[in-house]
C-alpha cells in the first residue's frame, strides 16, 4: 500500500473538509431557521476569499508580505468575516425578508438570482480568470509557513494546520454561542418553531439577522482558509463549494450543527480520496452518489432526527 498517497489524501481531505464544514454550518443554520436553501451562501464564501486576497495584496502580495504574519492573518479573518457577514445580512434584508410568507418557490428562485448576480458582478469587477499565487513565503514572519514532514514523506504545510485549528476554534465558539448565550437560545427556539417563538416575545427578525450574520461570517472565514491553503481564487468558485457544502449539511442532517461538521469532513475526505484513487474529474460524481445514497437510506441525515409532518 502506498502510504504516501494515503496520508497525503487524508490531510488534503481533512483540510478541504474543514472548509466545507464551515460553509455547511452556515447553510444548516439558515435552513434550520428559515427553511430556505440559500444558494447565495457559496458566493459569500467566494467574496470572503477575494477579501482575503485583497488583504494579502494590500501588504505586498503573497510572495513578499511585509507585516507580521499573525497580524495579517488576523486582519484577513476580521475583514473577510465582517465583509461576509454584512453581505449575508444585506442579502437577507433586501432579497429574502419580503418573501418570508411567500410560496416556497419564490425565495428559492430569488436565491438563485442572488447567487447568479453575485457571481457575475464579481466577474465584472474582478475579471473571470483564476487568480492564483504560487506559495506563501513570509520573510519577516516568525514562523515559516512551509510546514513540516510527516512520516512516509508527507508534507504538511502550516497553512493546513491553521485551517484545521481555526475550524476547531470557530466550531467551538459557535457551539458555545448557540448553547450558552441568550441569543443562541433564541436561535434554537426560532429554529424549533418560529411562530411559537414569536409569541413568547422573541424578536424573530433580530434572530434571523444574527443567524445570517454568523453563518455568512463563517463562510467568509472559510474563504480565507481557501485563500491560505489553496492559493486560488476565482468568481465561480462558490458554486461547486456551495453544492458540496450543502451536500455535507444534508449528509450530516440539515439543521444539526455537529452533523454539518461531520458531513463536511466526510465530503472532504470522499472528494480527496476519489481524486487520489479514482479520477479527479469524477469526484463530483462520487459526492453526488453519496448524496443520493444518504437521501435514499436516511433522508434525515446521519445525525438528524426524522421530522413528522403535521397536517
Amino acid at each position, binding site marked *: 500500500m502506498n502510504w504516501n498517497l494515503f496520508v497525503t489524501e487524508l490531510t488534503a481531505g481533512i483540510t478541504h473538509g474543514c472548509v466545507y464544514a464551515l460553509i455547511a454550518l452556515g447553510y444548516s443554520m439558515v435552513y434550520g431557521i428559515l427553511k430556505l436553501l440559500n444558494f447565495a451562501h457559496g458566493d459569500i464564501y467566494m467574496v470572503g476569499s477575494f477579501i482575503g486576497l485583497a488583504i494579502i495584496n494590500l501588504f505586498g502580495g503573497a510572495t513578499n508580505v511585509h507585516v507580521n504574519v499573525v497580524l495579517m492573518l488576523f486582519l484577513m479573518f476580521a475583514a473577510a468575516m465582517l465583509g461576509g457577514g454584512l453581505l449575508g445580512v444585506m442579502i437577507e434584508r433586501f432579497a429574502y425578508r419580503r418573501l418570508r410568507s411567500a410560496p416556497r418557490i*419564490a425565495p428559492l428562485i430569488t436565491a438563485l438570482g442572488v447567487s447568479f448576480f453575485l457571481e457575475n458582478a464579481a466577474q465584472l469587477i474582478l475579471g473571470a480568470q483564476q487568480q492564483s499565487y504560487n506559495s506563501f513565503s513570509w520573510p519577516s514572519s516568525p514562523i515559516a509557513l512551509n510546514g513540516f514532514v510527516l512520516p512516509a514523506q508527507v508534507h504538511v504545510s502550516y497553512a493546513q494546520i491553521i485551517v484545521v485549528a481555526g475550524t476547531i476554534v470557530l466550531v467551538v465558539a459557535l457551539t458555545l454561542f448557540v448553547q450558552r448565550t441568550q441569543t443562541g437560545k433564541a436561535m434554537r427556539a426560532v429554529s424549533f418553531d418560529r411562530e411559537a417563538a414569536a409569541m413568547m416575545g422573541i424578536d424573530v427578525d433580530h434572530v434571523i439577522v444574527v443567524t445570517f450574520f454568523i453563518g455568512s461570517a463563517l463562510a467568509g472565514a472559510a474563504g480565507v482558509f481557501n485563500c491560505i491553503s489553496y492559493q486560488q481564487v476565482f468568481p465561480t468558485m462558490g458554486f461547486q463549494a456551495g453544492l458540496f457544502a450543502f451536500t455535507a449539511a444534508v449528509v450530516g442532517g440539515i439543521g444539526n450543527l455537529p452533523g454539518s461538521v461531520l458531513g463536511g469532513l466526510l465530503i472532504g475526505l470522499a472528494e480527496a480520496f476519489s481524486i487520489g484513487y479514482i479520477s479527479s474529474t469524477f469526484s463530483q460524481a462520487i459526492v453526488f452518489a453519496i448524496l443520493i445514497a444518504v437521501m435514499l437510506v436516511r433522508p434525515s441525515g446521519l445525525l438528524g432526527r426524522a421530522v413528522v409532518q403535521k397536517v
Partner: protein
Amino acid sequence: MDGGKDIPPVRAAPQVGVDEWVASHGERREQRAGVLGRVQTELERVPRPAFYLGFGIAAAFLPVFTNNGYIIRVGFDTLLYMLLALGLNVVVGYAGLLDLGYVAFYGVGAFGYAMLASPKFGLHWDTLLIIPVVVVATAILGLLVALPSRRLVGDYLAIVTLFFGQFFVTVYQNGNHISVLGLTRGYDVTGGPNGIPNVDNFDLGGLKISSLQGYFYTALIFFMLALFIVYLVDQSRTGRAWKSLREDSLAAEMMGMPVARLKLVAFAFGAAIAGLTGTLFAGLNTAVFSADFDVPTLIIVYAMLILGGAGSLGGVILGALVVNVSLEVLRTPGHATWIFYVVLLATLLVKVRPWKWLAIVIGGTVGLGYAVHAIVSAAWPSSVGGQTSVGATLGRFLHGWVLHPTNPRIVGNITFVILILAILGLTLLHGWQRRLAMIPTICLAAFVWENRLVVEPSITRLILIGVILIVLMNARPQGLLGSARVEIV
C-alpha cells in the same frame, strides 16, 4: 379602484350549499372601467388556443418579411427557448417541482442527436427515427433522475437535480476518455472539450432541411405541436392533478392522487420536451459543445418562465420572446444604450406620480448631471477623455451629461458597487425622500452604465438576468401572465 365608491348593497344571505366566496367570484374580479375594460372582457371571451394559433401564424410570417439571416436566427433561438420554457413550465409551473437539472436533458437531446447523426460513430440515422428515440430516452432519463427524488420535498429535489445537471456537464466535458470503472481503456463518447462536430442536418424522411428558414419552420411546427399537447394535458385529468399537487401535495395525497407517479410523469414530460429541443439545436448548429448546457442557460430559461409567469402558456411565449430579444439587443452597445435610457425613462413615467414630481426628478437628474460634469471636468480634464458607446444626438447629449473618464475600469468598478448600495438604500426610503434620492442614483446609474456595464455586454446580460429574478420575485412573483400562486412540493 377608486376610493369614493358607494357602500356596496347588502347581499342576500348565502344559499345553502353554495360557498359565498365561490358564489361572489364574478364580483371580486378586478374589472377595469372604460374602453380598456371592455377590451379586456372581450379578450377574455376568446378561447386560449386561438391566441396560440394567432401567435403561430404571426411567427410564420417572420421569414416572409425579412431575409436578414440574423433576425431569423434570433427567431429560431427564441423558438428553442420557448420550447425549453414550455417543458420547464410543465415541471415547475404545473407540477411545482423545482428542477435545476433541466438543461441537462436539453444537452442529452443535443448530444443524442449528434451521436446518432454524425461521423463520430459513423451513424447517420434518419431524423424521423432519431427524434422518437431521443425523446423516449430523455423521458426515461427524467424518470430515473426523479426516482430517488420522489420522496424529497422542494429544496432537496432542487439540490439533487442541480447536482445531476452539474454531473452531466462534467460528463460532456470529459467524455473523451470514459472508461468503465478505470478498468478498460478510455472511450471517446462526447468528444470532451472539442464537442461533436460535423453533425448532419435534419432529414425528415427524405426531406432535407439545411436552410435557416427551413429550421425556423421546423422549430415553429415542433413548438406549436408541443404547445397544443401541453395545452391538452393541462386541460386533462392529469393537468388538474398536477395543479392540486402543486397547491398542496399532502391534501392531494389524501384525496387519493398517486402523488409519486404524478411527479415522475411531470418530470419525464418536461425532460422529453427538453430532449426534443436539443435535437433541433444540434441539427441547426451542426456541432455541440458542453458549454451550452451549463448553469447560465438554466438561469436564462428560468428567468423566461418567471418573467412570463409560471403555469401560464402565454407567459412562456411572452417570457421567452422578451428575454431572448432583450439579450440579443444588449449584445450591441449602441442598441443597448438606447434600450437602457428608454426603459429608465419609461419606468420613471409609469412609477413617479404626480406629474410635478416627475418633472422635478427628470429636471433634477439632467441638471445634476450637467453640474457634476461641469465641475469635475474643470478640475480633472481626463474625466471626459473617454468615448460614448453610442453616436448621433444621444451620444452628443451623453458626452456632455455623463462623465467619461479616459480610464474608466477602476472608477467604474467602485461606482458599480456604490450604485448597488444606492439602489438598495432607495428601497428603504419612502415618499419625497425616495424621489429626491432618485436624482443622484439615476446619475450614478448612467455613469456606471456608460463606463462599465456597456463595455462588457456579455457579463452585463447575465447580471441583468440575476436582477430580473430577484426583482420579479420580490415585486410580482406571478410574472406577467401567471397565476398568483405557484407552490413547490
